[in-house]
């Protein structure tokens, strides 16, 4: 693929006219690889380890989709995107799925021509301050310097929040989470604001997490979820139902450990349909019937992924909170597989 493209460019590629616009699914299958847009480095969500292998909560979504579509969770090419480049990368076809803690908003869904296929993390914007500042509420931040990542929805929320509460602030814009951390730790800003999950992840990485508090105010709703290009509904369905399979799997107690066994057939028809023992759900979205099983085997069900990447046993230590199953008082709710 790459080589032909290379030659193509040398021969003034475009003259040969573009490839016929196939569906995303066909593209991915032909390529044998899923291009997945991820964060350039946010520990817990998507970050390369010392050897350049990507791990994290968002990465697990990429792996599940690759497993569902291609049958191999390792057939993913991770494309690091910045807040700047992520939407264009998706729109231009450079990536097939954007799994980069992206907030689902009206204008992004409509004006930017994205399709959000679901929510994999319910988040909200919060503030982190040093304990010795003596601040206990965001309402006391009048006049403070606030570090904020540029190109995100947090920027707009911050402006709205301070305005609504009739307070002033000095924005200190930073380009990436790494830079925000640097500035905050050095004391260049009184408060650091981003999604609460990001704050927890950032604080977990500090040498002295106990000296920093995350203020109780959550000033916005930030439903984070994977997005696909608008217009290719089949592909959108594939990603959506892969995500739903992970969520449903947790609800029904299907884990990476017992999936093999359960796929031999169970009493529960819902599990049977999810794992492809019964019915032909996969065919309806252009995949085979085992897609759900493979997605779960990639890195486990939603609960397992959460626990392994950002859960309470990891340094990031996020509680399930809103992201618990609906049966446990959370918001995770997969539509039925039938």
């Amino acid at each position, binding site marked *: 693929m790459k080589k032909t493209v290379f030659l193509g460019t040398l021969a003034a590629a475009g003259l040969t006219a573009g490839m016929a616009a196939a569906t995303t699914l066909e593209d991915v299958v032909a390529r044998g690889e899923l291009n997945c847009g991820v964060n350039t480095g946010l520990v817990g969500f998507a970050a390369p380890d010392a050897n350049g292998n990507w791990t994290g909560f968002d990465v697990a979504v990429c792996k599940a989709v690759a497993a569902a579509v291609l049958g191999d969770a390792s057939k993913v090419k991770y494309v690091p995107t910045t807040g700047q480049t992520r939407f264009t990368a998706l729109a231009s076809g450079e990536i097939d799925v954007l799994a980069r803690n992206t907030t689902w908003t009206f204008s992004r869904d409509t004006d930017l021509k994205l399709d959000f296929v679901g929510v994999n993390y319910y988040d909200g914007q919060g503030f982190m301050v040093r304990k010795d500042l003596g601040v206990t509420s965001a309402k006391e931040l009048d*006049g*403070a310097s606030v570090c904020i990542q540029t190109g995100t929805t947090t920027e707009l929320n911050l402006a709205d929040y301070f305005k609504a509460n009739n307070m002033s602030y000095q924005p200190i814009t930073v380009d990436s989470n790494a830079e925000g951390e640097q500035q905050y730790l050095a004391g*260049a800003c009184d408060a650091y604001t981003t999604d609460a999950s990001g704050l927890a992840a950032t604080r977990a990485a500090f040498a002295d997490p106990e000296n920093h508090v995350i203020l109780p105010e959550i000033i916005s709703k930030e439903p984070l979820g994977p997005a696909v290009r608008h217009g290719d509904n089949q592909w959108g369905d594939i990603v959506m139902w892969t995500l739903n399979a992970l969520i449903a799997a947790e609800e029904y107690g299907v884990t990476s450990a017992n999936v093999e066994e359960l796929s031999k057939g169970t009493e529960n028809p819902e599990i049977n349909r999810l794992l492809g023992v019964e019915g032909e759900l996969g065919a309806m979205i252009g995949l085979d019937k085992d897609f759900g099983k493979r997605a779960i085997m990639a890195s486990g069900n939603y609960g397992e992924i959460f626990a392994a990447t950002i859960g309470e046993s990891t340094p990031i230590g996020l509680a399930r909170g809103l992201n618990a199953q609906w049966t446990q008082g959370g918001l995770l709710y997969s539509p039925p597989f039938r």
Partner: protein
Amino acid sequence: MATASDAPNQGFRLSQLIYDTRYRSLTIQVVVFILVMGGMAWLIDNTVQNLQQLGKDFNFGFLFNRAGYDIGQQLIPYTNDSTHGRAMLVGLLNTLWVSLLGCVAATVLGIVIGVLRLSNNWLVGRLMTVYVEIFRNIPVLLWILVALAFLTEVTPAPAAYRVNAETGEAQASMLLFDNVAITNRYTAVPAAEFTRGLGAIETPLAPISLNFLALAAVVIASIWFNRRLVANANKVQETTGFRPVTWWKSLLILFGPAIALLVALGFHLVPPELKGFNFTGGVNVSNAFVALWLGLTLYTAAFIAEIVRAGILAISKGQTEAAFALGLRPKRTMNLVILPQALRVIVPPLISQYLNLTKNSSLAIAVGYLDLRGTLGGITLNQTGRELEAILLMMLIYLAISLTISGAMNVYNKSVKLKER
């Protein structure tokens, strides 16, 4: 004498388009024109198709929508209720502002370093060589990042300036008689204020301070009167051979009215004061700005130093000696003989360094300083998803700035061109 006769006129043949040098250039130009236009049409056609496929249009209407974000440094009034267009303008002014200050500082530093490098002081010469080589061989991005890291890691937080109630001392103290505080988020400097100010004229673009206008008018008038005075003195000297003493008159004319005006307007400096989280009262110059400015200045100064050195070395020693032989004093030699020649060598590359500095100011992205790229090509692009419009507009604006600067250079070059006779 052989008679030259024209080739027999055979009428126009098609092959002449290729073989006849009279027509060939025309043919080539037509072909090139068709190719270029075809290429452009191809690009535009692709763009139209792509936009159609994405369901987008090409429309600058977003510039009139509410921006919704805040900008740390603004030279003209701006709130998050202003439009994207105004945010762009704020960014553009920020770009120009940091470029202007960078050019000024880099020129001063560059001249000092360039001259010191030529000094016959061994140690200083070597040190300056080391400076020049180190700064120009390492990417400017590194210098900007180093400046930022230095400012955030090494300087104290504003809280360090707070007087500890128990010990009665603060960890850090302000500079210049409690007027300047360098902190890890900004440098707080005094603000200029007028107690009996004249107010300002509100314009849609920005309020124009009448105080400033009045001051500018007075200064320009003073300079004009001073020139009259000097011209008059020259005339007296030429007719009588005796030059009247002018220096104190000059000083009086140059500074007297301006100072009088400032006093009349009640000019005073308001030093910054630590209140709550931050310094207030003065002006807080953000570290992003200082880091960018410092990085650009240090880097560009190394290049300017080389230009200045080359310019001075280019003037042969014979010129100085000839001027001395004519009885010119050193100062006049410098003003009348050396500088005009050296400047002709120095100014064109100097201006192209200004151009580079202005273009490099787009590295503001690395420190989060909201310049043109940060507003129009950054947040606005992101919030509206109009990358085609935003980037094309941004490139056009940068192009306009560059063309203006190089236009100024051409005018200068024409004015100092050697008049060949």
